[in-house]
């Protein structure tokens, strides 16, 4: 495996629940409850799970848009989990994000040129004079005409807007881009174009991606490795092929079986999970999944399983999965 770019370990993000009266803390939402992931340079890690499992929060915490409660985020070897705004500034250039909703992620009152100039202005890159050229180059990179700079976001289609979002993310020449469901709001036909663009950019620039998605079809297209999250924890991490064809964690298996033909040739034994996803404010004891797990045992209710490596690159957090 190539050089590790990002190593997240034991990441927790808790939101306090406060009483309305006197603002006492009366509980905690454990949105992210001990996540360990690694991303190598040039690699794409997909972070999958149902909505509410904490994958977006994980992404935002890595970018430090949300402050992590506990745990470590090492970027290129440097611990950034506790950095203040000033020490964080250089890392802002190296990690970027592409949002899910291409309508909400672009400021409607700014021209595309203005939106793309922002990264340069903030980081004082180049001179005002050479900015139009930089912006034009960015637009060309994502397949738009330079004239687009003078237009406003609302004049573009969803796919075009997402390209603008990508262009903005690229402006600072980052090493890691977190895609937070970057294509889920787009029409299927457009999705492929955007994904292909991202893949091309990865190839050209050696970018690493964390692709946050609930869409396994998309994941199967882009990911090198996949991490599956359930209720704030990663339950299984594996290379793409291994995950789709040799998933070991009962939750991953259930997830795969629920999706109609995510990957061509995938074996489908339909497994329906019992019950609802528990509230992250009151997660079950032990293994978070044990209440719904078809193979749960007494031990699962008491002891949280750690991720164990069962094969090279394949880790599973389950007491009942043997290597």
């Amino acid at each position, binding site marked *: 495996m190539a050089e590790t770019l990002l190593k997240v370990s034991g990441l927790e993000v808790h939101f306090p629940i406060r*009483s*309305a*009266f006197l603002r006492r803390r009366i509980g905690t939402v454990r949105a992210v409850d001990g996540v360990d992931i690694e991303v190598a340079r040039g690699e794409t890690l997909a972070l999958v799970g149902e909505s509410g499992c904490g994958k977006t929060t994980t992404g935002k915490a890595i970018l430090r848009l949300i402050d992590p409660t506990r745990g470590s985020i090492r970027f290129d070897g440097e611990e950034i989990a506790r950095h203040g705004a000033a020490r964080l500034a250089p890392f802002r250039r190296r990690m970027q994000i592409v949002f899910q909703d291409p309508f909400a992620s672009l400021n409607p009152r700014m021209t595309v040129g203005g939106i793309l100039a922002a990264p340069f202005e903030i980081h004082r890159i180049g001179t005002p004079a050479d900015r139009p050229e930089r912006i034009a180059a960015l637009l060309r990179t994502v397949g738009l005409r330079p004239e687009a700079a003078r237009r406003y976001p609302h004049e573009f289609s969803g796919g075009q807007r997402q390209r603008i979002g990508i262009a903005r993310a690229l402006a600072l020449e980052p090493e890691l881009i977190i895609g937070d469901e970057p294509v889920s709001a787009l029409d299927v036909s457009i999705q492929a174009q955007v994904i292909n663009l991202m893949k091309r950019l990865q190839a050209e620039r050696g970018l690493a991606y964390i692709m946050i998605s609930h869409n396994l079809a998309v994941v199967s297209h882009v990911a090198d490795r996949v991490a599956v999250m359930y209720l704030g924890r990663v339950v299984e991490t594996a290379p793409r092929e291994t995950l789709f064809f040799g998933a070991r964690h009962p939750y991953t298996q259930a997830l795969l079986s629920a999706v109609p033909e995510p990957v061509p040739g995938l074996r489908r034994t339909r497994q329906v999970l019992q019950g609802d996803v528990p509230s992250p404010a009151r997660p079950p004891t032990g293994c978070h999944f044990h209440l719904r797990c078809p193979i749960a045992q007494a031990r699962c209710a008491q002891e949280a399983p750690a991720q164990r490596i069962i094969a090279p690159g394949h880790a599973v957090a389950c007491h009942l999965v043997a290597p």
Partner: protein
Amino acid sequence: MIGFIAWRLLQAIPLLIGVSLIAFGLMHLAPGGPLAVYTLNPSIQAQDIERVKIIFGLDQPIYVQYLKWASGIFSGNWGYTFFGGRPVLGVILERLPATMLLMGSALSVAIVLGLSIGVLGAVKRYSVFDVLATSGALFALSFPTFWFGLMAIFVFAIQLRWLPSGGMWELGEEGNIISLLQHLVLPTLVLALVITATWSRYSRSAFLEVMQQDYMRTARAKGLPPAARLMRHAFPNAAKPLIALLGVELPFLFSGALVTETIFGWPGMGRLFVDALNMKEYPILMGMMMFTAIFVIIGNLLADLAIAVIDPRVRLR
């Protein structure tokens, strides 16, 4: 919800103390005082004024006067008026219902009218209706309330004789609801005029803003009929800043009520406040200030609750 309300009410206590301190301090620091009233009494002389000053306790340091007042409030005693020596709370409470009625009716009329005009203006932007409504609203804001009040009396009471020119009831008809409604019409309309104008401007803008939003385009694309789009999507979103405005509107409405009540002889707090301000009747001014403060706090609380009802994403904190 209950906890939230309780928390906000608890927060109100320091706020009220702050308001009372500032009000008391400013009032006493500002030039002029209640004794000026006595100067105009021809038979009052310098020595009489000195004596009254001591009777009213105005010779004491301000903080002593404040502490006296504050300790009174804590024991439920709002003090006595300088002139007439009547209990302040009673003086205010006997005026309160009339003001509440007038403000309530004017606010209801203004919200309904202002919102309708604003929405129509936003939907039919730059139509004849919109330009007329805009001009009308700005016209309404360009003349002082007393002018509209006097015009209304002149036209509807003196010339046409359709409606009474003032008061709350026909004398001797106290309690007669028909008489009350007849007397309520003109002051309500005059007071509502300015608020309607303000509201129509803000709501037109808020709806215009919302209707340009992408989710409205989506709704249109989905083929929702215009009325449904307006009610289901535009309204809840446009309402938020408007409700925030409503919370602020109360003291403003109160100021408007001052003039309207004076013109129409409406027996509310308006005239009381004006007289108290003119004569520097500190105990009444303090009492009314505390009442306004309580209203503002309740008004803002209600506004926040309303926003939370409309928008489930807003958590009450």
